[in-house]
């Protein structure tokens, strides 16, 4: 091939590439882009109405691109890699947000927070843990959830359980009663692993306490510690007694919720989003289902509640940071938008101005439970860095498959977690 021909070939190869590269997306000052994982039919419709409300107030159009929950986890980071993040995106408060901040992808919002007086809007329990990272504000809470023992009321009453078990002994006695009644006490659908994490979260929080758990989550404590062993042994004794459904790893969280709804099982440890699911299939809150808080295990351990916070963040390279800040402020502080959103998602609002009349009886009880707690802790996969969370989530599924291996499982988990923390 002669030189001229080679040049021609190169030019021909490169031309379309260059052409694509020069097609920088256009951008208007009265437009904010947002990506989120609220892809449910109701969620999308509700969010659209809320965003329309924002447009009416501010004149800013919000361009919305939803991605399914699981795909979002990878999708948003691929966009971060390509420096193509939307102005605003939804993200889970906690270790995942910290991870994105460490990569320099988020923009602090302290100025907006102070100017909008959000200290007086966002409940302190949520604001303290979910919005501040390395001393700066980065996130506003759009909604949050609480995880508790949701149960089928008729099944519980039939077994003669009318009072919420307060202590571990009372809880085990209730399970025994249910079993004697021919009902599996606890449904768990750990096919996608995460539903099992709430058991670990509560057992470790109720025995070793929130401070120890925080150490385990940041790598200064070990999965080989006696504290972890004790929590896992409690869990194991429950599986051994047949309190959990068979084949938990074959079910999704909705399968497990269905089992409780049908009365095949009595209860399931799940987040408040289960109320959204149950309401949508026709169950009545407070009549058909209710919940009680995870019982006390070791007396004297500070009372903690567990749940995730759905946050909204602004990317470091946002094209319209002012518009993005206005949007965040609106979404967290407008009581109507917040109330509407909480209702649709079966979520709680972190906005203290949302009237309690917006909630059903079960959600009100959840709010009271959170108010009474000393600590709000994020669930496992939002508390520990993602590489470690992967290790732990697999550990829970493996434990549910064969709890007799618990010692080996913990040793291997510690080895893998230590190397993941070292990354």
């Amino acid at each position, binding site marked *: 091939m002669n030189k001229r*021909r080679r040049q*021609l*070939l190169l030019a*021909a*190869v*490169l*031309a*379309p*590439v260059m052409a694509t590269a020069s097609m920088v997306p256009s951008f208007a000052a009265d437009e904010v882009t947002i990506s989120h994982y609220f892809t449910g039919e109701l969620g999308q419709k509700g969010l659209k109405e809320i965003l329309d409300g924002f447009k009416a107030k501010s004149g800013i159009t919000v361009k919305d691109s939803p991605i399914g929950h699981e795909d979002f*986890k*990878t999708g948003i*980071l*691929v966009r*971060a*890699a390509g420096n193509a993040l939307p102005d605003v995106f939804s993200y889970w408060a906690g270790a995942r947000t910290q*991870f*994105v901040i*460490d*990569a*320099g*992808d988020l923009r602090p919002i302290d100025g907006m927070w102070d100017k909008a007086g959000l200290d007086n809007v966002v409940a302190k329990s949520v604001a303290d843990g979910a919005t501040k990272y390395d001393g700066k504000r980065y996130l506003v809470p759009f909604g949050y959830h609480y995880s508790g023992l949701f149960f089928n009321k008729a099944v519980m009453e039939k077994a003669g359980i009318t009072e919420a078990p307060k202590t571990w002994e009372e809880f085990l006695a209730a399970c025994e009663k249910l079993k004697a009644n021919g009902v599996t006490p606890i449904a768990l659908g750990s*096919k*996608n*692993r995460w539903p099992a994490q709430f058991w670990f979260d509560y057992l470790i929080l109720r025995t070793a306490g929130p401070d120890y758990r925080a150490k385990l989550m940041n790598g200064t404590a070990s999965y080989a510690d006696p504290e972890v062993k004790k929590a896992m042994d409690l869990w194991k004794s429950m599986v051994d007694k047949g309190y959990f459904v*068979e*084949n938990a*790893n*074959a079910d999704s969280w909705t399968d497990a919720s269905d089992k409780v709804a049908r009365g095949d099982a009595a209860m399931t440890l799940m987040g408040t989003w289960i109320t959204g699911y149950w309401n949508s299939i026709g169950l009545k809150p407070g009549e058909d289902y209710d919940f009680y808080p995870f019982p006390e295990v070791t007396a004297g351990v500070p009372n903690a509640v567990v749940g995730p916070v759905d946050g909204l963040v602004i990317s470091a390279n946002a094209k319209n940071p002012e518009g993005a800040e206005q949007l965040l402020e609106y979404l967290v502080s407008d009581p109507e938008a917040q109330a509407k959103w909480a209702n649709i998602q079966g979520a709680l609002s972190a906005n203290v101005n949302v009237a309690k009349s917006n909630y059903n009886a079960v959600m009100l009880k959840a709010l009271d439970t959170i108010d009474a707690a000393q600590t709000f802790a994020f669930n496992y996969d939002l508390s520990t860095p*993602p*590489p470690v969370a*992967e290790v732990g989530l*697999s*550990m829970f*599924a*493996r434990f549910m*498959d064969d709890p007799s291996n618990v010692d080996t499982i913990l040793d*291997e988990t510690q080895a*893998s977690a230590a190397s*993941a923390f070292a*990354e």
Partner: protein
Amino acid sequence: MNQSNTFWRVALLALPLSVFALIIIWPLLSSFYYGFTNWNGFSDNYDFVGFENFGKLFSDRLFMSAAINTIIWMAIAVVLPTVLGLSLALLIDSHVPGGPIFKTIFYLPICLSAVVVGQVWVWIYQPDWGLLNTIIEYVTNDRFNYAWLAKPDSALYSVIVAWSWQATGLSMVIYLAGLTAIPGDLLEVCELEGATTWQRIRHVILPLLTPATVVVVALSVINSLKGFDILYIMTGGGPFNSSDTLAMHMYNESFKKYLMGYGSAISVVLFLVALTIIRLYFKQLKKVDEIYG
């Protein structure tokens, strides 16, 4: 070759070449590059770590089990569709009643996407009301709720069976085409000489089907290397990584643990394995061409 002819060749090649360069060559070279870094997949900052990622492969328990699973997958994925496809082709070719209908039925799964096939088999394997356990309960008259996809001992094999179910149709069609190429007079001679059916298959049909077998085996191996989608749908590598293949492990490390550097190192290994197999295939294909023309 005159100047304008060259111009048109280059111009027409430009689009496919640039697309190929952009979405195949560039990512390929990138993953070689990132395999030597500790990039997390989205940060602007990363360091070169030399061969650390490749060294880590040997101490990674999950990598080892994923490698073994990949070998198991390939071995079964070659044997099952090949043997089943050949048997079905021989049956249909022997003019059983309804042959053409069965041919269509067996070929149909090919038309489905792996996602659909995966979902259908998830229902078949469902422990409480799935087709498989319902049949077993009916036959044994006893309660049976084994969770095929949720048990580490059976998850991988259950997925391979589903995958083979889809792949068998393709093998069958290739074998059927091969069978039509076998000269009828040769088979007539067999009959006249009094050869049994088995002798006819073993000594005449099978050797003459060698070109078809090479294609079937090669396609099965290559398809099994990219057998990611059905696994992703059916188990996602679970329960607890017990059905991970190399491709799934690479995905988990890169996109769930955000260890893009390490994930790239795994993909380099996977690439080298695929390259070796494809080279072997082309060599074999050449040999077959030389013998059978």
